[in-house]
């Protein structure tokens, strides 16, 4: 009996020391009383987030483990590269940037937890992070509650504009809508929609359906497979049956490897049918194999081959830092210039105060590798050039078409008549 009691006593002791250690660590980090902290987090910290002496802390929150790590790690690297370059050029407001790295672990509540930690404990000036819509949706209430900033670098389905988030990836009208228009003009008007089963493909396809309907084009099929699905024989049989002109592909991750291999094995090449993908970039092509996907199309704002002096420098620097084989891609570039946009807004505002940075960021332009990007003050997305590209045998994507100038972001598709009654038309 006595020994068992001793055990319970030990737990008690451990628990007590754990709590004391925790609170001591908190106090050391913030040098304030716990009671004051609540006030601190909501009011005081607004004045000068992250500015601690000679450095400004910025949070980097991507999945470094789990299924999303393969994609998000390179975005994280690009962001660190931008921070390094900025620091070498004297930092921001004369202070060096100090990245605080956290792992979102491909798990959405973890993103919320770590965003909370970055804002409350480290009091970072801004967070660069996220990839999936789910991770962004998890972080949104956190950054809004603590009036933090988040720079989100990936194309997504739209329908969102938080005052605390800057979206440096493409809104649907900067990737999907122009791609459908281009396909209708150049490749035919019968479409097959194929996507992974989650929010982005489902919402994107809902918009595509409305758009096709409006253009009088034909939708011959729509299929969803679970994330990570690898057997596409049934879907390919259906595709063969329907024989569409275009497959609009919103598959994500590994599924693309399986789908393109099996499509090729089924004897369908890019000459027979065009597959346009919106989640396949240079990084993914490495995994799929260039010979398998050669000749198929993609729609993005940036390719490694994009011909601007800024891109030449960016690719050279990126490969110098991360090896000759490293490729750049759209989300990597969006993560990279996001850091510069933020730094520019902070310089403009003269402080890291979130409200002032947000105000200063309106209309700011930066010469990014993909061309000029400008922050739209209304929805905090950026003006970007849209590009349709074709996969080459060396794994690079060559541009077939691009918009004449950067396209104004329109996350809610307000500019399009066919989208105005999107919700009603879908209910039918």
């Amino acid at each position, binding site marked *: 009996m*006595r*020994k*068992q*009691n001793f*055990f*319970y*006593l*030990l*737990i*008690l002791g451990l*628990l007590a020391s754990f*709590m*004391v250690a*925790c*609170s001591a660590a*908190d106090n050391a980090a*913030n040098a304030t009383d*716990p009671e004051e*902290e609540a006030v601190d*987090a*909501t009011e005081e910290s607004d004045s000068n987030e992250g500015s601690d002496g000679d450095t400004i802390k910025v949070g980097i929150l991507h999945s470094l*483990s789990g299924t999303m790590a393969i994609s998000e790690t390179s975005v994280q690297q690009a962001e660190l590269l931008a921070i390094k370059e900025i620091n070498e050029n004297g930092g921001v407001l004369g202070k060096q940037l100090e990245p605080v*790295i*956290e*792992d979102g*672990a491909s*798990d*959405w*509540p*973890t993103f*919320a*937890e*770590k965003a*909370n*930690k970055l804002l*409350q*404990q480290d009091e970072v000036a801004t967070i660069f992070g996220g990839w*999936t*819509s*789910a991770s962004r*949706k*998890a972080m*949104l*209430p*956190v950054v809004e*509650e603590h009036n933090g900033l988040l720079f989100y670098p990936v194309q997504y389905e739209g*329908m969102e504009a938080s005052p605390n988030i800057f979206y440096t990836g493409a809104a649907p009208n900067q990737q999907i809508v122009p791609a459908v228009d281009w396909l209708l003009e150049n490749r035919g008007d019968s479409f097959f929609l194929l996507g992974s*089963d*989650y*929010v982005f493909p*489902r*919402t994107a396809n*809902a918009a595509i359906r409305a758009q096709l309907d409006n253009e009088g084009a034909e939708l011959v099929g729509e299929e*969803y497979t*679970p*994330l990570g699905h690898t057997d596409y024989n049934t879907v390919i049989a259906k595709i063969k049956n329907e024989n569409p002109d275009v497959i609009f592909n919103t598959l994500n991750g590994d599924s693309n490897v399986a789908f393109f291999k099996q499509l090729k094995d089924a004897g369908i090449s890019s000459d027979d049918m065009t597959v346009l993908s919106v989640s396949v970039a240079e990084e993914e092509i490495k995994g799929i194999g260039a010979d398998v996907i050669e000749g198929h199309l993609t729609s993005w704002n940036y390719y490694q081959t994009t011909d601007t002096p800024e891109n030449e420098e960016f690719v050279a620097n990126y490969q110098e830092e991360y090896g000759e084989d490293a490729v750049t891609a759209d989300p990597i570039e969006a993560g990279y210039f996001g850091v510069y946009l933020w730094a520019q807004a902070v310089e403009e505002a003269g402080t890291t105060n979130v409200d002032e940075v947000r105000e200063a960021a309106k209309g700011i332009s930066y010469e990014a590798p993909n061309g000029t990007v400008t922050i739209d003050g209304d929805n905090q997305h950026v003006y970007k050039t849209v590009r349709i590209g074709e996969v080459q045998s060396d794994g690079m994507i060559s541009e077939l078409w691009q918009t004449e100038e950067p396209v104004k972001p329109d996350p809610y598709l307000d500019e399009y008549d066919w989208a105005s009654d*999107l*919700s009603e038309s*879908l*209910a039918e």
Partner: protein
Amino acid sequence: MQNTIYQKIWSQRVILNLIFLLLLAAPLFLSDFRLNLLGKFLAFAILAIGLDLLWGYTGVLSLGHGIFFGLGAYCMAMYLKLEATGGGLPDFMAWSGMSELPLIWIPFQYPIVAIILGILLPAIIAFMLGYLTFRNRISGVYFTILSQALVLVVVTLFVGSQNLTGGSSGLTNFNTFFGFSVNSATTQTAFYIITVIVLGLVFFLSRKLVKGRFGKILVGIRDGENRMRFLGYSPSAYKTFIYTLSAAIAGLAGMLFVLQVGIISPTMIGIIPSIEMVLWVALGGRGTLIGPVIGAVLVNAAKTGFSESYPDIWTYFLGLLFVLVVVFLPKGITGLFEKWNDRRKKQDVSSSVEVEKSYS
């Protein structure tokens, strides 16, 4: 005689009460952020107690408790979402093609209904599954596989019906609970206190349950189901009851989780979290009630601690922790002390043991 005084002062009950009081007092010396984390761990600990009743005491291994946790969490999240939109249509429904609130969402406008359903719904599903399987004497690994299949079905269903459940993004961005802002520090502290009290109650009642005759029957079923049947007990009834009870506890934990974390998505209820839940119980020591509580808090604290200190390689540390415990402490952390206990006892009474041995 000192021994007895020592025993009286440090009896289990006193220490458990002290732990309870210490947890209650935590808001005084933890920052809001850490308190919120601890609250989340304790919500997991509640679920672990329920799982221990089922696995540790009754010997039924369920790899599907994620969905009961999820059902409770979704019930609460649906209410919170409706509260945030003021009874209007949640944003994801609008752009998923719904024009009015679907029928199954309507009851969740009322918080009391949501709370009751958050416990009742997992319980009903567990009862149905348990009744059908246990009555047909499906047990052991077959039941485990069934419970795993249930997870797959439910997760696919939740991801697929985006217009009803928010799909893979789940439900998030909440506002108020009974009119209180869910994100404010005071409300969060209140949620924490509620979590501690619920944990205390669940622990106390479960302890009462297993200390008595009922607990003995459960252990009997675990160790010799057929013998219990021949003795005139109905193992299937007991198993169904415990399965239902542990599902209800999981639902309760899910509700407390959502209130404190502010998000629920299908990744939180899937196969991996379901297995993780069993790991907490195994790591802490099954069949002890306090073990799973320690396991849940320890594993999750380790997860947070490691990933904050070493964001690049923390998964290796966590893996190492699991391997070490499995290899060296097959009975979990509480097993370590039992072992140590036994050895001390043996030393004390080694002579008498030898005498006994010679008799037998």
